[in-house]
């Protein structure tokens, strides 16, 4: 009993002390932040002369503050945030300041940590602050066991080396999550140097997620030259690869696409069939209307709607196919056709 009451009181007192200390810490951080904003502004607007060894001038207070680990971490965080949102000379100057103060030493300490979240934080800091000399260390982690360390290392390599950094796709034996694919695609969108021949190689990877990622890159960069390498993915055993292939073909289709899609249509899942119908409507090849009209009789109502939408997209010939469909006046066709027509006019 007494132990319980003692624990209760201790936790309550701990909470209150914690709150007071937290408030004081936040106040201190605000103070430091104000102090650092001057330092960061000096760095951002710094113009180096002809002498490349010029250093960014810093106040004594800032230099003294660097001895304090919390102050140092705050400066690293501010530099990382600034580097993320700035470009050009201002961004370069922030990296210059990071190097000038030898802050990479502290990020490297994090990289050496055994704790995954500290290691991942270190990787992120080093990549954003362009510490290319550590690329070998980071690259080794692109196939790390811990998912978050692996993801940060992969992003870091792409951040440092752009498309060339994707060479880890050749070796990874773990799947790349969808989230990671979105992150990598966003990083790549800002970088030149896409190499279609490398993507073509990944299109036949045994790692399904690498194949999906390659399909996404093909679509994002409209790599029409890879069309013939994309088509075989329609026969991949995994449905998620097949549906991504159809989505990819939407961006890189050619005259041969419709035939390939119609050929594999009957073996696909319903979501994949819907995507194919949508794509056939987009392609709008006149030869497709017979196939699409046949799909109006499918047992699945969503496929009927998909086929009707595709026919409407094809213009007058498609509309005629709808009107001439023998069951067009009956439920559910009447409602489906009406919806497809209304959507077109909206």
């Amino acid at each position, binding site marked *: *009993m007494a132990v319980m009451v003692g624990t*209760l009181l201790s936790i*309550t007192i701990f909470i209150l002390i914690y709150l007071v200390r937290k408030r004081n810490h936040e106040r201190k951080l605000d103070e430091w932040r104000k102090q650092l904003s001057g330092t960061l502004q000096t760095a951002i607007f710094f113009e180096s002369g002809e002498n490349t060894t010029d250093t960014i001038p810093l106040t004594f207070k800032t230099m003294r503050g660097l001895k304090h680990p919390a102050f140092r971490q705050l400066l690293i965080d501010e530099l990382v945030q600034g580097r993320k949102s700035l470009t050009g000379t201002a961004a370069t100057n922030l990296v210059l300041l990071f190097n000038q103060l030898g802050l990479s030493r502290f990020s490297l300490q994090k990289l050496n940590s055994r704790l995954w979240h500290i290691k991942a934080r270190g990787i992120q800091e080093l990549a954003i602050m362009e510490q290319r000399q550590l690329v070998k260390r980071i690259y080794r982690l692109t196939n790390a066991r811990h998912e978050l360390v692996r993801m940060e290392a992969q992003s870091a390599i792409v951040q440092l080396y752009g498309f060339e950094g994707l060479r880890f796709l050749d070796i990874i034996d773990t799947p790349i999550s*969808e989230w990671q694919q*979105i992150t990598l695609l966003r990083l790549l969108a800002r970088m030149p140097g896409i190499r279609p021949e490398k993507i073509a190689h990944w299109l036949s990877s045994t790692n399904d997620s690498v194949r999906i990622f390659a399909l996404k890159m093909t679509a994002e960069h409209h790599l029409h030259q890879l069309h013939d390498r994309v088509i075989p993915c329609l026969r991949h055993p995994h449905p998620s690869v097949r549906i991504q292939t159809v989505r990819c073909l939407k961006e890189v289709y050619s005259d041969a696409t419709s035939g390939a899609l119609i050929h594999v249509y009957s073996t696909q899942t319903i979501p994949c069939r819907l995507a194919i119908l949508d794509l056939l409507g987009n392609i709008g090849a006149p030869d497709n209307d017979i196939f699409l009209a046949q799909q109006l009789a499918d047992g699945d109502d969503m496929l009927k709607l998909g086929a009707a939408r595709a026919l409407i997209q094809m213009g007058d010939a498609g509309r005629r196919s709808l009107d001439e469909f023998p069951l067009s006046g009956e439920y559910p066709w009447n*409602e489906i056709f009406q*919806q497809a027509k209304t959507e077109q006019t909206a």
Partner: protein
Amino acid sequence: MSLTSVFSAFFEYSLWLYSIILLLSYLLIAVFAILEIRRYLRSASFTDYSILATSPQAPGMSILAPAYNEGATIVENVRSLLSIHYRNLELIVINDGSKDDCLQKLIDAYHLKKIDFFVKRSITTKDVRGIYKSTNPVFHKLIVVDKVNGGKADALNVGINVSSKEYIVCIDVDCIIEQDALLKMAKPFLDSTGSRVIASGGVVRIANSCEIRNGRLVKVHLSDTFLPRAQTLEYIRAFLLGRMAWSRINALLLISGAFGAFDKEIVIACGGYNHATVGEDMELVVRMRRYMEERNIPYKVTYIPDPLCWTEAPSSYKILGRQRNRWTRGTIETLGMHKKMCLNPNYHTLGILSYPYWLLFELMAPLVEFTGFICMLIAALLGYIDWAMFFSLLGFILSFGILYSIFAILMEVLTYNQYNKSSDILKLVLTAFLEPFIFHPFVVWSAIRGNIDLLRKKNSWGEMSRQGFAAKKSNANA
């Protein structure tokens, strides 16, 4: 040894065993919750959620918001939902045959026009009277469905049939959803590689007394009145400790109906929400899990500790009683429908751990407590009670309960610290001391009434009138 003494010993030892397992399970929940929240916060600390806000690769999400007689607040609520940050989003408001002017208000405010729309009957529902879309492109994400009244589960099923996206987010239309809630909710679905994430829940918090402006929560305040404050504490305990712990071992059975995201394909494969129960939110999660278990498909149900959804808690005993009565009936019905899973190793953690825990410590706890109280009264009248022992045990149990609540407050302070005024924390601590004497007995009594109502085959939802955030604001301004 007489039969009476054998029975008495059996009763006594069973009660001891029950209590010890219950207390141990609370300790385990606390440990697992710490581990899971720590893992989440560490990972979230270097996650840039904004990448989803603009990415064309973001998965499609349909928010389903059923509305019944919400005319007083519907326009504000929909405006708030339309301001959520997410690119690939549609908002489906389902007017479940409201008797008030709910639909007309939506038509007027959002320039709605009835459209031709074929509703695929993936799940059988009551009739749809019409589908409306706005003529103003600003509201292009909004779809309003008008249907014949069929209850919340039926309305949600209609929403599922109408939705065109891969994931559905089911919410209560009168909740305040944080602007970045969907970005955070989408992540678990995209993160998983080995097993399919079939559902993800978000923490629901109490918004009574909070400052709400233009459908957005601007400042968090702890409620001034006891009942919402007790529920604030209860929600912190349930969401920050309970759900996070169960999510850690992938054994979560309940995602709150106020805010949960689901994989639509699995929802449809399972037949959607069940309108034969008033606990449709729990029943769906259990059925989805059962579906995956029976097909041996690896899956996960995840939970996010971030406070993403704010709701108005009942502030009167009458409404609170109805709510808890319904929750009890929902739990009994759900566990009854899936009794096949109880201690069945084919269902792994679900059958061996989650189901028995819910049966013993969620469903039966009020019954055990109530029976214990009656037995104690009888024993006291007959003079069988060793009062010294009684008070020691009572003191121990009360201290344990209060300690658990204060531990939950500690977790809140160390993680999200929504109530950052010291006075608010002290009020919460005080509530933790008062709760076992005022709030808890009432909740137990409501659960007992729920059991009785179920036996009497009463299956109504019970009217849940709420003051509404907008109404409160205007009262405050007056």
